[in-house]
């Protein structure tokens, strides 16, 4: 059973912007799915259509088999959504917000109160339950929206950049929390600009760019597609110029740092032995950028200057790499 099935989905906003240009996408029940793409790619628009916040222009959407044109209410009752932007009443308290939301999904008050306690505790908001939501910190407000989305225990949880502006510690605990929920059977669709997050959490991935699906694959097979990786080597002793290693592109970053591009046919042992032969000692090594990020940048940069310019906003490391003129 597909938790989400989208066919030929298009959206043209009233101002003429064509945000979606024919999206086909299936997400399996139980999946932890990453929906990635540069700013303006159409992720929020897609989520908006699935959750009825945006009217579609054309195409078909099914949620657990319920067509949103014919069985909208049934489809909606399967979904919990954490939107990209804050959308609760800032003058209400967290407890009121989540209990009312449960009510809108038909959960009786008594049950809603119990769940409010459970989820506000899990998201570390219980001691703020009767404070005005306006006074919560940015990260707390995001967690409040997660708690709210879980109140009716949806089968499909859609999170639009849930970890934006959330500190590292809370982000890690949110990851654990989402993994836990997914392990219990909830299908999760996540958008994020932290590609490390997508790589760690998600089993399947779609990259959308300019309103089209640019890539749709299992995370593991996508990562295997990466043909070259760039490694950063830290050296024990200073070198004055990049050593010449035949078949490898080596650049000198500073006198203690080298970058080496390695293709899948080549291997690291070879590099290390040649460096040893030259008397260069390597202290430590790391990937220059996260591997998913590498693929992501290639996909969206391949689309021409426009895509690249927008993608530059996606991640500073990737942007820095582009400025370095590596490719």
């Amino acid at each position, binding site marked *: 059973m597909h938790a989400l099935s989208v066919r030929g989905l298009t959206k043209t906003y009233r101002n003429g912007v064509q945000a979606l240009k024919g999206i086909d996408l299936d997400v399996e029940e139980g999946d932890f799915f990453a929906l990635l793409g540069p700013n303006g790619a159409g992720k929020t628009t897609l989520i908006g259509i699935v959750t009825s916040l945006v009217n579609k222009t054309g195409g078909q959407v099914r949620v657990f088999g319920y067509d949103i044109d014919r069985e909208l209410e049934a489809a909606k009752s399967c979904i919990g*959504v954490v939107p990209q932007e804050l*959308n609760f009443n800032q003058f209400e308290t967290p407890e009121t917000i989540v209990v009312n939301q449960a009510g809108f999904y038909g959960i009786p008050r008594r049950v809603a109160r119990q769940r409010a306690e459970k989820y506000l505790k899990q998201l570390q908001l219980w001691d703020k339950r009767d404070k005005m939501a306006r006074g919560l910190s940015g990260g707390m407000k995001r967690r409040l929206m997660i708690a709210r989305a879980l109140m009716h225990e949806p089968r499909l949880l859609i999170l639009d950049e849930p970890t934006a502006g959330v500190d590292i510690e809370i982000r890690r605990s949110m990851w654990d929390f989402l993994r836990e929920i997914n392990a219990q059977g909830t299908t999760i669709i996540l958008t994020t600009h932290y590609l490390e997050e997508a790589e760690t959490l998600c089993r399947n991935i779609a990259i959308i760019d300019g309103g089209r699906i640019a890539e749709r694959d299992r995370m593991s097979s996508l990562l295997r597609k990466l043909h070259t990786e760039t490694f950063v080597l830290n050296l024990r002793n200073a070198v004055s110029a990049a050593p010449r290693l035949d078949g490898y592109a080596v650049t000198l970053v500073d006198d203690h740092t080298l970058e080496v591009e390695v293709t899948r046919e080549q291997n690291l042992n070879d590099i290390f032995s040649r460096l040893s032969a030259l008397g260069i000692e390597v202290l430590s090594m790391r990937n220059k950028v996260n591997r998913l990020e590498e693929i992501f940048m290639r996909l969206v940069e391949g689309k021409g200057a426009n895509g690249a310019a927008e993608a530059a906003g996606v991640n500073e490391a990737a942007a820095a790499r582009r400025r370095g003129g590596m490719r």
Partner: protein
Amino acid sequence: MNETAVARETEAPPAPPIDLGRVRWIGFWTIVLREYGRIIRIWGQTLVPSAVTATLYFVIFGSLIGRRVGQMGGFDYMQYIAPGLIMMSVITNSYANVVSSFFGAKFGKHVEELLVAPLPNWIIVAGYVVGGMVRGIAVGTVVTIVSLLFTHLHVHHVFIIMGAVLLTSMVFSLGGFINAVFAKNFDQVNWIPNFVLTPLTYFGGVFYSISLLPEWAQKLSLANPILHMVNAFRYGFLGVSDVDVVRAFVIMIVAAAVLFTFAVVVMNRGTGIRD
């Protein structure tokens, strides 16, 4: 977070049969309760102002000027205007509640909480409208109590009083809802109450019987729906009316039905709320 997360039921959430009727019923009451909570939370803005205004009207028009007016429609002036003033507060408050609450929900984006929920639009409209009626009737009750400090009210037909007040507050709650759907800013929220509702109410027989007017003005007044509502309500207290009470009820019922349908249609189209 993760330690407590284990407490969640371990099996996959089953596909529950969805009882849409129950979801709608609970959803509807949740909207009404939320509106009620809002009225109580900001009672200084919702319940008090009309009580103050009504008191001023009673003091100035009733006691000071009313004494010189003498009789109106066979009753002393204070008694004559009391039902009109009650109705005026019902109209203003029903409208104001829904227009500001729903526009606020649009403006603060929390209308999305309802748009993503499995509730049909007619439930959303009905919930807000009943919320507006709660406010209209609550304020109407407060103003009735104030009026009892100044005059005594007969009750001629209790069901006419209740019917008129319920239908009127329903009609104006719906009006407020539609206004909020179309409003793009706060000016457009205030525009209709200031430039349409207030004049129509003042010319709607709150302060005078239209028999005092020249013939053409009487005819014109009959086109004003508020005149019919106020007079039906007054008939419930005093047993006198400038208009046919049955026709007044027909007007109210038709207006409520038309406005409700219109509100649901614009919601279904997503006007002003969905891109």
